């Protein structure tokens, strides 16, 4: 399966790059260097300057996919984990603890799912079926023989419970306010604890556990949530 490369940066950067044609000011460490600015064969002299977004005209005659690879994940936090030949990736929006979204977390009603007006929905991409406890998160949920693409959401504990839950939804690219409950796929328990070491913004981490397992960890302020999973190839 094709190795996943995040499609791009955040709001406006890509728009600016794409529509205004600018090269990014920095690059993703694991990405190839951006094509060098190159004068066109007809580059005007003096006050006129021409710059192509990649290569010469011939090389640009048919380009696909190259552009996104050198975009910077400037407004998204990304985590990846190799499970054998497969990759699991998660990314979350850049949301500081000073944001309205974080304030909403503290005021979340019991059993309610947290919305994130300030960011795209958190996203999980997996190239292998994953098992969270008894729940299986399959690949191919949005396209046969393709990676599993999910948005994931935090559900507050219901009355009388301390258990946070992770809701995985089939619409991976919606905004953080656009969850459609009808598209929820599975819901799994989360370990939750309050930590002293405060995370100034929402962060996601994926770490290996054993040979074929992993740990998804979300941190935000003093909140920390974790869920373990294992690869469960069919």
């Amino acid at each position: 399966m094709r190795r996943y490369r995040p499609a791009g940066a955040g709001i406006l950067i890509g728009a600016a790059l794409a529509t205004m044609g600018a090269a990014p000011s920095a690059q993703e460490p694991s990405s190839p260097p951006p094509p060098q600015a190159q004068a066109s064969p007809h580059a005007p002299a003096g006050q006129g300057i021409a710059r192509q977004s990649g290569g010469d005209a011939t090389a640009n005659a048919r380009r696909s996919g190259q552009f996104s690879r050198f975009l910077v994940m400037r407004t998204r936090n990304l985590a990846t984990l190799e499970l054998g030949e497969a990759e699991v990736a998660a990314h979350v929006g850049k949301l500081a603890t000073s944001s309205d979204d974080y304030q909403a977390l503290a005021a979340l009603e019991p059993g309610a799912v947290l919305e994130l007006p300030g960011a795209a929905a958190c996203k999980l991409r997996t190239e292998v079926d994953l098992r969270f406890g008894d729940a299986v998160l399959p690949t191919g949920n949005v396209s046969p023989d393709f990676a599993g693409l999910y948005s994931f959401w935090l559900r507050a504990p219901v009355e009388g419970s301390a258990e946070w839950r992770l809701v995985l939804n089939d619409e991976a690219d919606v905004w953080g306010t656009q969850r459609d409950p009808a598209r929820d796929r599975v819901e799994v328990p989360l370990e939750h604890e309050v930590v002293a070491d405060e995370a100034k913004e929402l962060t996601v981490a994926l770490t290996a556990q054993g040979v074929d397992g992993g740990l998804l960890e979300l941190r935000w302020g003093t909140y920390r949530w974790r869920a373990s999973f294992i690869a469960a190839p069919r």
Partner: protein
Amino acid sequence: MMKRVLRFSLLASTALAAAPALAAAGDGDVTFYRDVLPILQDNCQTCHRAVGANSGGMVAPMSLLTYDETRPWAKSIARMAVSRAMPPWFATEATRGKFHDERVLTDQQIETLTRWASTGAAAGNAADAPAAARFAQDENAGWSFRQPDLVVPLPEPYAVADDVEDLNIDFTSVLTAEQLPADAWIQGLEFRVGGRSVHHMCASAFAPGEKESFQVGELGRNGLGCIALGSGPTFLPEGFAQLLQKGSRIKFSMHYHKEPGPGSGFTDRSELGFYFARGPVSHRAVYDAIGNVSFEIPPGNDRWRVGSAKKFEQDSYLLALWPHAHLRAVAARYELHTPDGATELLLDVPRYDQEWQVVYRYREPKLIPAGSRIEVTLWYENSVERANERRFDSRQATTFGPATTDEMMIGFLNWAPAAELDPAAAAAPAAIPSSGSE
């Protein structure tokens, strides 16, 4: 015209009750000069003439000015009108009356065109014809509003080679003192592109010494505007304008897309016309975008939703909306979420067509309160059927990118803070304040 249409409508209704007696009269009642021409003038001729409206390189394939020009297309016109494929307008009834230049035929107008086509497409009496329509372009060398106050072309002609299929390239022109001796407020922009092979043309302005690195929010700071196929020029309401500083660098971002092959190359010298504000400016407008560039449209998926949003920290006026995407996009929507919890549909385009990228300009600036959030949603179809129709590869996942066969998810918008500018600043703007974009 309305009187004529109503009269026809009444006759048509009566015909249902007395068909044999009125059939002949009904046939003769619908004529080009009296019934059809007014509809064409109001809804079609702005594009369908030799030098039609500037729609981002889109050129109407035939003129519909005269009877002789129109008669061969009678049935086609009726068919397009019934299917509502023409005139091109994609917003739903929910926003009827809110935008400039709505191109929507009434049921009665469609009925008139249909009856005319099906009853012999008679010319009628030329004395019944309304006065010939006048178009600003005819009197202003093709420009849509008036002669621009400043025209900035690409720095020099650029040859797009035969082998180019998809090409993104930037050009920069530095405004000379002769071109722009002082800072100016820009009320309108009109791109004139070098033909249909210009997929899009964008412009941004950088003040002298301003660094040209895009950061979050800088599209609103530096962007002037964009057009693509089907997009018309922008003219902001009185009192609203963008700032253009003397000595600025105008950066043009060109995207060419065509069938490669011998003879397909062409030389482009697209240009941008600036219309300066002629009255007082009370609001500094910005050109902004609400976008998502981290999506991945799965192969074969026939309904993929991608969302994005922007929060407005201050009372603001919305001036224009323009959803922008590529071949897989099938629908677009803008929604306003106000701090009181209410939701308002701003724009609903259930049948998005990247070849008709309409800019929806508000008739009256739309005031939104501080704390509002605008959500933009686009839906994509990466199906075999659409791939065959639009010529892309649906077997691959698709992400954000500049090529036509890549995808985009951008909700462009023109907006301005509701707070009025200080009169001194409005008269002599010296610096560009932050746009407040995310």
